[in-house]
């Protein structure tokens, strides 16, 4: 019998299906049939350069465009940082761009009641009406002498985001209440390199040459930074050297590594101290960087103080002080009691690091510092790079490469009226610089943003924020103690929100302005560093805009400036219209789109419009070529920048005894007419005396007693996270299993099977997770990749208003999964202003639901 598609469909219609009917029609089968395939061909289109921004690396990428549609993604082949390939996040861009829940038009709330689960009763409005309303509200504040009650919060970076919406708009309007989201992410980790070597930034790593990678409190093949670069180099490091992972959870890099140190959360400072102790007592430090004992005999003996005069330091300062104050008793056996890592493993790892020195990368991530005493853990872990001499050397730990000339926007001073000039006298809403919140980024008290504390400021003084503008952020979901934001936002009299899709924060807005999805629709210039090169990449529209959306940081700024001018406040418009000259033609902008392009051209002009070619990639000649090539990389990193007494610290050396911390803390104490010890007390650190000035171990601060809340809660990020904006994508859920221990289309809590046995819980059980501030009900998965006494759940799900996939039911505000931020307490590493989210700072108890 000859079976064809038509005959089969007819047959199945009659019998209810071949398989179901038990093969009533016995198929005729035979062996291999070989024949030529029909001719086929690849899709035709073009690759357009842009920038991913699915994490903080901001990779230069290209998107394949067919008939004006974004189809596929790859790394920009010119990139020295991603080697022409992206991590999984990049591939999700088209799905994010074509979210079926994109906001198509500006919308207005018609229900004045605000709250979780309250329908805002959105109605569509025109851009004209929307911006008229925003301008009216802003000018009303100015008229009443309350310009400082205009608050802006941002959630993304670019030259235009920083210079315009976050820069020119609040500055010329007259408010200093503009805030970045950075302190909910990773600011505490900057304190380690900052207070030791004077570099308050994210480190780069010479992964191509290193012989030892220590991934500490991060999973750099999945998240943090440089993911494609790390994936690219990891096999080589595994082959020629040692890979060590420090994390209580079996991360992806821990799965690959030679050594996994699943320490008790929050004890990183103890482990770092013990490793430093072994490096010193066994004489494994790097002589070229650190120096040596004058007579060559190692006096670092456990428990014994050393005479400072006996050691001659080279590029460092305070090694012996550090030993005497902190390290001499911090033996691996001592640390075992804190970290639960066997002393033998600590010793083995310290020796491996010492053997590889100086070609060692101690790569510190948010797991180390983003906890209530994180600054000191961050210092302790980074100081290992100092001991090993891996600072700024081949195969070691590097600073921002720089060398990428970016054009500054014109000065706006002339456009500041008295209101704007006087804005500085008002206190910022985030409490920075208060006695209990030194926030001393760059060792300058009061200079760091305390993002998550804004909600507390708003709740404390409900009149302090009268007009709120926010873009690309979602703080009542993404900040710990999320419900505080719900309450704070509900009290804001007027809130204008700008984003691509609905969100929890949008639910509290009065007006929502639909943004371009900037990785594929925006226009700006993004700079970053990775793999020994600084680079600048274009971010530009790759295809057609499907909706009536506008880029918030350029087009909306222009259109809003026009409205403000029409209503009697011309300063912002005049600044934009009179100062922003096209670097090629000298023309001034006449509309939002022209302005947007001129702003991007000004930012990037030094790369493609310079008389003398900047050092680095071959010169790019003209704007069109820059857009086509998409990126430009600066020269190779020059090593040993801070060596020879050029570190940006008070002593100009790498400070194991931090004169920078001392200076900052003493300045802060003086402001409040008190002592550093008192500041330590009110900010919740345990150090007293000189200990406050050296890297050291602080026992973890924990909300919830061990008796009542026995488990340390571990929050982590998915490698499919896309800066927290991918929860509405089917592909995020479909491949969630690529996060070890996780289950696709689910949001499971992981627990060690030994704990499961004790609590009589099994995989698949629904459990209630309760912290001192809240609870959530989730599915349990027993998993060996986790230390007993801890439970872990990925951040990112539990959205109740983020779209049809992210929320189980948007209309009913029913979430899919659970949001960790509803059980995590809002607390801070107060020296940096960072939000705590790691280090087991919130205890939980687990019960069968």
């Amino acid at each position, binding site marked *: 019998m000859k079976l064809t*598609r038509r005959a089969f469909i007819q047959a199945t219609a009659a019998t209810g299906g071949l398989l179901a009917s038990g093969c009533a029609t016995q198929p005729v089968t035979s062996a291999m049939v070989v024949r030529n395939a029909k001719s*086929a061909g690849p899709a035709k289109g073009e690759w357009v350069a842009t920038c991913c921004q699915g994490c903080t690396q901001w990779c230069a990428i290209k998107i394949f465009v067919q008939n004006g549609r974004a189809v596929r993604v790859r790394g920009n082949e010119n990139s020295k940082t991603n080697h022409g390939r992206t991590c999984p996040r990049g591939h999700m861009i088209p799905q994010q761009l074509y979210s079926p829940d994109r906001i198509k038009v500006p919308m207005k709330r018609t229900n004045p009641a605000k709250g979780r689960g309250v329908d805002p009763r959105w109605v569509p409005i025109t851009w004209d009406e929307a911006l008229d309303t925003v301008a009216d509200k802003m000018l009303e504040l100015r008229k009443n002498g309350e310009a400082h009650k205009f608050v802006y919060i941002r959630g993304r970076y670019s030259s235009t985001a920083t210079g315009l919406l976050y820069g020119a708009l609040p500055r010329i309007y007259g408010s200093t209440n503009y805030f970045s989201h950075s302190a909910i992410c990773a600011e505490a980790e900057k304190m380690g390199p900052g207070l030791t070597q004077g570099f308050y930034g994210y480190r780069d790593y010479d992964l191509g040459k290193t012989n030892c990678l220590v991934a500490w409190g991060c999973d750099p093949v999945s998240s943090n930074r440089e993911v494609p670069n790390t*994936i690219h180099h990891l096999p080589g490091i595994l082959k020629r050297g040692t890979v060590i992972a420090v994390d209580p959870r079996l991360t992806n890099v821990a799965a690959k590594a030679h050594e996994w140190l699943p320490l008790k959360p929050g004890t990183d400072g103890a482990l770092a101290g013990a490793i430093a102790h072994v490096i010193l007592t066994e004489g494994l430090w790097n002589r070229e960087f650190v120096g040596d004992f004058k007579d060559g005999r190692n006096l670092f003996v456990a428990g014994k103080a050393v005479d400072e005069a006996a050691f001659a330091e080279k590029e460092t300062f305070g090694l012996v002080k550090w030993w005497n104050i902190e390290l001499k008793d911090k033996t691996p056996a001592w640390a075992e009691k804190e970290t639960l890592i066997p002393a033998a493993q600590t010793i083995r790892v310290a020796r491996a690091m010492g053997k590889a020195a100086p070609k060692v990368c101690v790569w510190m991530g948010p797991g180390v510092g983003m906890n209530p005493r994180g600054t000191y853990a961050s210092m302790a872990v980074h100081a290992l790079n100092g001991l090993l001499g891996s600072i700024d050397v081949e195969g070691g730990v590097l600073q921002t490469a720089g060398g990428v000339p970016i054009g500054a926007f014109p000065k706006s001073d002339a456009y500041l009226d008295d209101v704007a000039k006087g804005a500085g006298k008002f206190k910022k809403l985030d409490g920075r610089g208060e006695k209990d919140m030194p926030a001393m980024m760059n060792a300058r008290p009061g200079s760091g943003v305390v993002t998550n504390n804004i909600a507390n400021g708003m709740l404390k003084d409900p009149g302090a924020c009268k007009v709120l503008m926010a873009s690309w952020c979602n703080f009542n979901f993404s900040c710990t103690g999320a419900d505080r934001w719900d309450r704070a936002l509900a009290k804001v009299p007027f809130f204008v929100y700008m984003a691509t899709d609905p969100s929890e924060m949008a639910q509290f807005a009065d007006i929502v302005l639909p943004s371009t999805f900037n990785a594929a629709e925006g226009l700006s210039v993004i700079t970053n560093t990775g793999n020994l090169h600084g680079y600048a990449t274009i971010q530009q529209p790759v295809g057609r805009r499907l909706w009536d959306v506008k880029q918030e940081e350029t087009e909306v700024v222009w259109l809003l400036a026009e409205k403000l001018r029409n209503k009697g406040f011309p300063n912002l418009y005049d600044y934009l219209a009179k100062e922003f000259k096209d670097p090629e033609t000298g023309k001034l902008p006449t509309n939002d789109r022209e302005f947007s392009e001129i702003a991007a051209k000004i930012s990037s002009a030094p790369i493609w419009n310079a008389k003398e070619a900047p050092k680095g990639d071959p010169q790019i000649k003209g704007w069109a070529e820059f857009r086509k090539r998409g990126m430009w990389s600066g020269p190779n990193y020059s090593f040993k920048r801070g060596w020879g007494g050029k570190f940006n610290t008070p002593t100009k050396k790498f400070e194991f005894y931090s004169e920078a911390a001392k200076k900052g803390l003493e300045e802060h104490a003086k402001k409040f007419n008190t002592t550093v010890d008192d500041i330590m007390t009110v900010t919740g650190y345990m150090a007293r005396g000189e200990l406050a000035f050296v890297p050291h171990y602080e026992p973890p601060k924990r909300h919830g007693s061990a008796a009542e809340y026995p488990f340390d809660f571990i929050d982590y990020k998915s490698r499919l996270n896309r800066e927290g904006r991918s929860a509405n994508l089917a592909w995020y859920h479909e491949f969630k299993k690529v996060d070890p221990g996780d289950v696709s289309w689910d949001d499971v809590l992981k627990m060690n099977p030994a704990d499961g046995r004790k609590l009589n819980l099994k995989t698949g059980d629904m459990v209630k997770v309760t912290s001192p501030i809240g609870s959530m009900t989730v599915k349990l998965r027993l998993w060996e990749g986790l230390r007993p006494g801890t439970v872990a759940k990925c951040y990112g799900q539990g959205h109740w208003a983020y779209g049809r996939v992210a929320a189980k039911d948007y209309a009913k505000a029913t979430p899919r999964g659970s949001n960790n931020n509803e059980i995590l307490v809002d607390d801070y590493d107060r020296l940096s202003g960072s939000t705590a989210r790691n280090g087991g700072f919130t205890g939980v108890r687990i019960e069968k639901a």
Partner: protein
Amino acid sequence: MSRLGMVIDLQKCVGCGACALACKAENNTRTRAKGQSHNWADFMMRTEGTFPKVTHWVLPVLCNHCADAPCVAACPVTPKAMFKTPEGITMHNDELCIGCRACQNACPYSRGELDDASLNGETYSVISFNPFGEDPQPQWADKAAIIPGCTASGAETAMKAGAATPMLNQFVAGDVDVVRKAGVVEKCTFCYHRTSNGMQPACVEVCPSKARIFGDQEDANSEIARVLKAEKSFRIQEDRGTKPNVHYVGKYSARA
């Protein structure tokens, strides 16, 4: 005659998922439903041992393009919808396919219906089936908007984009359609529309650790042949005697 195949180096693989995502984009595969993953590239993964002596491995999986392919043998139609090409690809023709799923039943690497075990990497299916009488891309046919008048819908997005799916990769179809219709099976073609034109399969091209090598095993000078000669390799379920052409080298974990 050539014998196309693939080697995946597990020492290089970090289980990131880029290959599977690029595959979905390149081949326009729909989202999982009704026990069908529609993942032509997928993963197995497992955590083994007892804390703290724990290892975790990931194994990328795809159609093995077996030399003695049970799916081809099982295909009951004449001429066969599932067949071998002279290059060694196990190819599928959508026009001839009757949707009987005999191939899916016969394939050692496929399941007629995936259960929850596939969601944590215990099971997978390299052949998926598009049910009869259903829209093969239902999310783009959905007309519902969560905020009517203000937010888009799947159908409106596809309509505005001007394609069956907004991100459609409109390649030149041969045996396999750009979007498979209802009532046919689907699986990896080694990106025939690309590889027959001198390009690499999408999963190979995008792998950030270059863990995948695609090529002709009969060509002694090819990278795949050299790697297979130099390194110890294995294939999944080799004992079934189907002569798979996807090989694995290296260890996923340095501690295994």
